[in-house]
């Protein structure tokens, strides 16, 4: 069989996109481990860069790639439901601190949207870009659902969410030191509010207590964001 025929066969089945997705992510995880879990060596960032370069190089349209990769994408919804387990296990950490934690969550969520949207508008970014900034501090699978509800691109929202996660994980230490937050539970919760899953895994790698509070913050922000963002966006976004 000629190489050409093999290629035609492979690119017609979902297999190529699946191998590409899992292979690139595997490469991302290996690099992350080798870099001593440095937040800049984020596996998602590496995987996306590899796949984007390859599909552009072989001239594969994104829609074609997604046709195969949608099997992986589907599990996002399942994984969102599964977040109930870590949230349930973190609920004990709420005890005695419910009020301050909720005030911090509301404050953080509001500041996240207001600052990003205001800056992007001020610098005259495209409305499609401004809209996709709304859900960026919410964990990516929930953010994409929210994006559909407020009629902006889920893809662009996911890209902003991942970028926010990485930035938060890299910068958290300096910001938290600057504002004088010393307690691990406060540091973890703040990081979880701002940079969801990526921030949470960063928090866990520094302190168990910080990680627990970060995952609680991520979960609560996800639930709050899913309910509140579409409602608030109705009033502030010209339809």
């Amino acid at each position, binding site marked *: 069989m000629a190489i050409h025929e093999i290629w035609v066969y492979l690119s017609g089945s979902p297999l190529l996109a699946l191998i590409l997705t*899992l292979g*690139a*992510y595997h490469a991302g995880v290996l690099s992350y481990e080798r870099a001593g879990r440095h937040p800049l060596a984020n596996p998602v960032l590496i995987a*996306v860069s590899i*796949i*984007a370069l390859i599909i552009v190089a072989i001239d594969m349209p*994104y829609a074609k790639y997604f046709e195969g*990769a*949608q099997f*992986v*994408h589907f*599990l996002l*919804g399942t*994984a*969102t439901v*599964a*977040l*109930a*387990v870590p*949230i*349930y296990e973190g*609920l004990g950490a709420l005890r005695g601190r419910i009020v*301050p934690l909720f005030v*911090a969550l509301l*404050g953080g969520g509001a500041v*996240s949207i207001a*600052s990003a*949207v205001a*800056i*992007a508008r001020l*610098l005259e970014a*495209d409305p*499609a*870009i401004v809209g996709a*900034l709304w859900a*960026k*501090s919410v964990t*990516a*699978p*929930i953010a994409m659902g929210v994006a*559909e509800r407020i009629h902006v691109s889920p*893809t662009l929202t996911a*890209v*902003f969410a*991942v970028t926010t996660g990485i930035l*938060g994980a890299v910068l958290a230490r300096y*910001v*938290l030191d600057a*504002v004088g*937050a010393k307690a691990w539970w406060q540091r973890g919760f*703040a*990081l979880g509010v*701002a*940079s969801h899953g*990526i921030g949470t895994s960063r928090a866990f790698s520094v302190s168990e207590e910080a990680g627990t509070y970060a995952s609680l*913050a991520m979960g609560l922000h*996800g639930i709050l964001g*899913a*309910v509140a963002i579409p*409602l608030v966006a109705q009033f502030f976004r010209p339809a």
Partner: protein
Amino acid sequence: MIGGLVQILAFQGLGELASKFLLPFIPGPVIGLVLLLSFLAARRTVPAGTRLVASALVQHLGLLFVPAAVGVVLFWPQLRSHALAVALALLVSVVLTIAVPALLLRAMSKRV
């Protein structure tokens, strides 16, 4: 393990149905999450199979949003022409979103 997967998929299905017919402004998986959370709270324990499947999924959450994030290729020209606005918005916003909850928690725990 299969039992756990069935359970999580069933809650996802319930969530999708509820989102379609009752609460259209909340994404189905989020309703599924809340339902599963209520189920666990009522049961007061996490079934072993559910815990196994959930930890596998949550651990590799990153992999699951790769297909969507690759869509960045579609927006590349737009992102490039607004690069400064996007970079500043993301950077300033993430710094403030870390600082504000930390400051609020610090202020409130001093008073208590």
